[in-house]
């Protein structure tokens, strides 16, 4: 087994808010191997974005307290000196953000925004950086890259802008690419193009990818592994097949039930879990026991309410990638009370 690109263990993020301290990420652990895609799934407010922003030190220090360990190619991102962290952003890890309409600076040309990234990490002269920028734009499929360099973001469509953002993220050939809801704001057809693009580039370069989304359709298409987040915790993880086809946690099942084409009859009964009712718990006031307890359709005894379920291996423990879930609800997905 090759060394993982990223190894996160027990990541915790606490934010200071006007309503008191908020525990947004509570002990998250996972690894990303080279060329592997890990999808992080969850509703908004589940802590998935914060967890990756914390990795690159992109949360404001006066608001966020981050603890745990995050080894990027063996180096701990969380204890790094600021200057070293700056050097890692780019060549170590690149990031693609949700909204291509706002993630580019509207008053600078695309070329400038690409070139400044390239030149921040190595002694490259302007002309060489410009050539490299044009090549990158070509690689991400922008027509007429040479001319696109002198354009401003508002002159491009959303899909084209997101390609530019990806080009920026890849401009220093990072070992890890983090895509935070990178296709959420785009049309479905454009979404598919962007996903294809990332898959293609990933295959060429062997980049590890963290793909954050709440869209399970995207997950099915792109991920090798899935990590389901709820209330700042990992409630279930495993291979795509395990999690999507044999979901163990009631929350995951709820999410899948919420998907129209996956809501197939189970034992001849159409599950009435059309959506997961309610909203995620506020991170300022998390439940004591199972985080999902207040919304859980199959919740049972007092244990669910008062005791936190650990992330336990389900099924074969011998598998290279174990399927784990944090729930007291041990019945199989087809079992009794669900539905």
């Amino acid at each position, binding site marked *: 087994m090759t060394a993982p690109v990223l190894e996160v263990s027990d990541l915790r993020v606490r934010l200071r*808010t006007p309503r008191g301290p908020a525990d947004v990420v509570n002990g998250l652990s996972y690894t990303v191997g080279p060329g592997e895609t890990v999808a992080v799934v969850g509703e908004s407010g589940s802590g998935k974005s914060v967890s990756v922003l914390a990795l690159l030190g992109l949360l404001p220090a006066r608001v966020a307290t981050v603890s745990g360990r995050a080894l990027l190619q063996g180096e701990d991102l969380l204890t790094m000196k600021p200057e070293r962290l700056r050097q890692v952003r780019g060549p170590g890890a690149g990031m693609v953000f949700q909204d291509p309409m706002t993630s580019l600076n509207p008053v600078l040309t695309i070329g400038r925004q690409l070139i400044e990234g390239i030149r921040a990490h190595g002694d490259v002269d302007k002309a060489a950086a410009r050539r490299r920028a044009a090549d990158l734009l070509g690689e991400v499929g922008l027509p007429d890259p040479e001319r696109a360099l002198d354009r401003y973001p508002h002159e491009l469509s959303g899909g084209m802008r997101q390609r530019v953002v990806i080009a920026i993220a890849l401009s220093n050939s990072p070992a890890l690419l983090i895509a935070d809801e990178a296709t959420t704001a785009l049309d479905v057809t454009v979404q598919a193009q962007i996903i294809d693009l990332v898959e293609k580039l990933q295959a060429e370069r062997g980049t590890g990818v963290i793909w954050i989304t709440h869209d399970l359709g995207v997950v099915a298409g792109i991920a090798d592994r899935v990590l389901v987040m709820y209330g700042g915790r990992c409630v279930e993880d495993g291979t795509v097949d395990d999690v999507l086809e044999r979901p163990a946690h009631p929350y995951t099942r709820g999410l899948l039930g919420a998907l129209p084409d996956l809501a197939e009859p189970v034992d001849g009964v159409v599950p009435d879990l059309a959506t997961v009712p309610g909203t995620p718990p*506020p991170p300022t006031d998390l439940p004591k026991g199972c985080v999902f307890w207040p919304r859980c359709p199959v919740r049972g005894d007092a244990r669910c309410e008062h005791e936190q379920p650990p992330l336990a291996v389900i099924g074969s423990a011998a598998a290279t990638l174990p399927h784990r879930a944090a729930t007291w609800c041990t019945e199989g997905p087809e079992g009794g009370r669900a539905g």
Partner: protein
Amino acid sequence: MTSQPGPAASSAPKPTAPLKPARPRWRETLGLLLRNPTAAVAAALLLGVILVAILDETLAPTGPNEIDVDERLQPPSGEHLFGTDDLGRDIFSRVILGAAVSLRVGLFAVGIALVIGSAIGLLAGYYGRWVDDVLMRFMDMLFAFPAVLLAIAVLAVRGPGSGNTALAIGIVYIPIFARVTRASVLGVREEVYVRASRSVGASDFRILTRHVLPNAAPPIIVQASISLAFAVLAEAALSFLGLGTQPPNPSWGLMLAEGRGYLQIAWWLAFFPGMAIFLTVLCFNLLGDGLRDVLDPRQRTLMGAASGAAPAGSEEGGDR
């Protein structure tokens, strides 16, 4: 000019938004406001000023225009807390009575601006199209005119005096209220609950007064508090120029003007009325800021959102 409801598009109904937002909860608003120490202190001080203004005659140790030639230009002492002026009048009494004048003029001025300006903004924002164009173009013209000069011109037409000063200041602030109201109406015009009322055939008047106005109110309230600050300041300035309140009535601006000639020998003549203006204006401004923090949701979330990491669930979490 963009007469189309551009800004409204951004506030398109979100699927999770409740059908109709709760009316501003006054008790909660007040509670939040008083938790902000600066705003609480400002509110308390203003309450004091208002009390002083109401109780004026009873509080003042002497009549404001009681002339006592033997007691001319006395420095502050136990007998005359703020000293006396060139005619031997007690400055403390005059400052107290000046509070009544300042507040009355300020309230009238803001009242005029609020009623007329909000009405114009409401109509412009709600009906849009040519109504909007005509009204707002006119407001722009008024707004383009230098505020102090406009007030001076109005006073020149109407003659000096407290009432006309209030009118003059009120006219100056009409366009500001029109703009604020229009912007905030545009924000709620396309909300689900407004469209819902329209679809069940509610009259425009009913929609405007029951739905649009209450929900567009917070920025207007904030503007009113800040405008009160400027109105008190403007009244003082106009009286200082001799165009506002006329002697022998006590007005802070007028007292300042009268004290100007005695700066070297009797600083208290100008100092105390100036302090009174300054503190009153400061309190209105601080209160306005406090109100903005509490009432304006954009500002409220800004503190969290600026960090780029405000958990999206937390805001709704408390309301449910």
